[in-house]
């Protein structure tokens, strides 16, 4: 079928193919003639790639050149529609593309060379796979006639990335190039989004070929289901209407489904009056300041969220996947509830937790249908039951699980984040926050406030230290006038510290807010609680001077050691026009609470010493 379409397109080239040729500006003098030729035939593979990128809406690509991608870099040099951002390590190119994708809702794009370029990209690809981020990564490859000969900078890229991509391609013939790229973008963003790799041998980049537009490409072989079965939706809404102790449990799927999904979720939640808890990836889909938001759930989630999950009678999971960090001990996970699971990926349903009702659907479609049914049938939540349920939730809330011991002399990490949030609240610009991975990430999820989707970038599934800075760079590229803050830890930031150079080169005023406790905090916390305080290799000795480091790269650095000084420095940070590091020297002993220890259930949380104990007699 694809072959037929292509032949047809070649035989009768449509004029609309012409309209978005990238060469139009460069080749101004002979534009009309050149364009016609350019669009149909006599393009090199590299030119086809550029045209395909433009037609797929790409305006920014993150990459690092090398021998096997030089023809593409040459083509990039001769056009103006696509901005190339030179990173300092290929892993960062992928994370930046993720940050770009997550903050715009578009497909992120990366370009790396063969061999080490491709292998360096693997962590970023895996990160995108686990967090379902649409990314297309182009990798160079040795010429087709050298594949398999252990040529210089050769790696079996499609073999290596097969398990860490949603789909990957090796294009061995230029005639398949355009349609492969179009399918790659389609696959990356359709259904459950994910990363796609296109491996491009160097001779294919040079080879002359013709271009086919996305409109003339047959994409029928990948058409995942997005519409829910309406009878199932009716069943789900009936279950919700009869619930006495309901809870919404929402995840990254709502974010991936677009801003409309978040709006509909807010409408549904407010319409029903049910409480909602969100996963780490789902933060921002519903405003966290609202009373109906119980905060994040899971291992470091709030007391009220986890107890509500444990005690609920109807659980409505929208776009979350019962991750092990969320469920705790499986056989004690929400033992008395009927569970509804809405997910676009059929393999997510019944994967870990058996549910009463599984609905395969895009969140936005399911939410729209649920609202329609709820309205049409004039459902109302059981008022008495809801009153009791909220009274119960308020009792859990009164534990104040996030409270911590304040100090006048030492900066508590939680306090630092509260002050950061206070400053962000006053900020007029659009605010985006990314994080690295560890204690600081959990504190950021607990203490920052999330008002809208696509403004929170964090590595959830893979837990990739070093994610935050490159992701922030990707966000800042997409939103040049926004304020982008990377909440970091002293260990994580060093994993991709070289990207300071990228930020300086491209004039990206990313703010790096390091909660520096001189430990790999989360590792230390586990060693303290579970391994007899034997701190094996978790103390970060010989940390650099982050202020001087920022300076050395051409950025700005501040250090804060006293709580009184915090507000002033945060204010300074907001004003800088360059990449800025704030090295916040925080309490080294502070641990992240509350916490569900592994193998424990939601109702067996450990609270910090400062939280009030819950009086079980109140239940």
């Amino acid at each position, binding site marked *: 079928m694809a072959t037929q379409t292509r032949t047809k397109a070649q035989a009768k080239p449509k004029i609309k193919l012409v309209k978005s040729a990238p060469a139009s500006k460069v080749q101004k003098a002979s534009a009309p003639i050149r364009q016609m030729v350019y669009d149909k035939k006599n393009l090199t593979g590299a030119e086809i790639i550029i045209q395909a990128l433009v037609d797929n809406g790409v305006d920014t690509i993150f990459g690092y050149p090398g021998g096997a991608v030089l023809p593409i870099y040459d083509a990039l040099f001769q056009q103006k529609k696509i901005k190339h951002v030179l990173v300092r390590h290929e892993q960062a190119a992928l994370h930046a593309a993720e940050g770009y994708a997550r903050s715009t809702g578009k497909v992120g794009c990366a370009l790396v060379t063969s061999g080490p370029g491709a292998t360096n990209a693997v962590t970023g690809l895996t990160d995108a796979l686990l967090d379902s981020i649409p990314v297309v990564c182009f990798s160079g490859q040795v010429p087709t006639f050298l594949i398999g000969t252990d040529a210089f900078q050769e790696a079996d890229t499609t073999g290596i990335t097969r398990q860490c991509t949603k789909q990957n391609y090796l294009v061995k013939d230029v005639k398949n190039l355009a349609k492969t790229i179009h399918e790659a973008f389609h696959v990356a963003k359709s259904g459950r989004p994910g990363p796609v790799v296109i491996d491009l041998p160097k001779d294919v980049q040079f080879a002359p070929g013709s271009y086919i537009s996305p409109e003339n490409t047959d994409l029928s*072989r990948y058409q995942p289901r997005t519409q829910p079965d309406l009878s199932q939706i009716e069943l789900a809404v009936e279950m919700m209407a009869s619930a006495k102790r309901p809870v919404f449990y929402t995840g990254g799927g709502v974010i991936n489904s677009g801003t409309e999904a978040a709006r509909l979720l807010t409408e549904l939640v407010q319409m029903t009056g049910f409480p909602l808890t969100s996963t780490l990836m789902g933060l921002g889909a519903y405003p966290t300041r609202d009373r109906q938001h119980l905060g994040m759930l899971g291992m470091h989630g709030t007391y009220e969220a986890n107890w509500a999950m444990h005690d609920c009678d109807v659980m409505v999971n929208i776009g979350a996947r019962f991750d092990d960090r969320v469920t705790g001990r499986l056989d004690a996970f929400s033992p008395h509830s009927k569970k509804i699971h809405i997910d676009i990926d059929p393999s997510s349903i019944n*994967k870990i937790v058996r549910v009463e009702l599984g609905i395969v659907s895009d969140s936005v479609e399911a939410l729209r249908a649920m609202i329609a049914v709820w309205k049409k049938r004039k459902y109302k939540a059981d008022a008495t039951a809801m009153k009791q349920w909220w009274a119960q939730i308020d009792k859990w809330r009164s534990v104040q699980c996030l409270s911590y011991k304040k100090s006048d002399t030492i900066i508590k990490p939680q306090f630092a984040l509260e002050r950061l949030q206070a400053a962000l609240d006053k900020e007029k610009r659009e605010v985006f926050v990314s994080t690295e991975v560890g204690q600081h990430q959990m504190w950021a999820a607990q203490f920052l406030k999330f008002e809208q989707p696509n403004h929170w970038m964090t590595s959830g599934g893979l837990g990739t230290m070093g994610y935050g800075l490159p992701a922030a760079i990707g966000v800042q590229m997409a939103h040049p006038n926004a304020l982008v803050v990377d909440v970091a830890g002293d260990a994580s930031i060093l994993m991709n510290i070289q990207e300071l150079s990228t930020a300086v080169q491209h004039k990206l005023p990313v703010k790096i807010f390091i909660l520096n406790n001189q430990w790999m905090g989360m590792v230390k916390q586990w060693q303290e609680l579970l391994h007899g305080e034997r701190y094996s290799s978790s103390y970060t000795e010989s940390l650099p001077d982050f202020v001087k480091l920022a300076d050395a790269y051409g950025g700005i650095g501040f250090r804060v050691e006293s709580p009184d000084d915090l507000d002033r420095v945060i204010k300074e940070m907001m004003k800088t026009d360059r990449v800025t590091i704030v090295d916040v020297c925080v309490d080294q002993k502070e641990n992240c609470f509350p916490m569900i220890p592994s193998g424990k259930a939601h109702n067996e949380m450990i609270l910090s010493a400062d939280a009030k104990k819950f009086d079980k007699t109140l239940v």
Partner: protein
Amino acid sequence: MVRQSQQDKKSVYGAAPVQDPVSSHTLAVIVDNEPGVLARVIGLFSGRGYNIESLTVAETDQTKKQSRITIVCSGTVHVIEQIHHQLGRLVPVHRVSNLTLEGTHIERELALLKVCGVKDKRIEALRIADIFRARVVDSTLGSFVFEITGTTEKVDAFVDLMKPLGLCEISRTGVAAISRGKEIVCDGK
């Protein structure tokens, strides 16, 4: 249902669940016959820790360039359901059918057996081959090659009988399967 040992308590992950009973299922998978598709299917099994008992693949539709992969795999009902969905998620996969669950089906396997022997053993081998309706497809004075078709159990039984009679080499195809009746497993997700 969950085992709790000292080690589990220290783990960042919970305890391993106790397994449900394991059964064997036959899946028919229609895929685009493109490079890497088999690696993708097999990689899914190895990557997620599923067991493959047998795998047969060949192009079945030359115009559409589609192949049919027949997989016999074992696992709990839960695992088999996961395998089904995970396979369905792959881009080049058009259709997955669990033949074991979807009514009755026929399974056949072909095997070539080389049996070397002389005198009585040679005669006995030929007699048993006749009983099993195996064909002799090659013969020398000291050897036979038998071709046998049938269910996995029948082939197993034949192989067992040939062992004492000088069986020295086997080549088996793995299972090919098709459902009974008018229902078909075809293209279209």
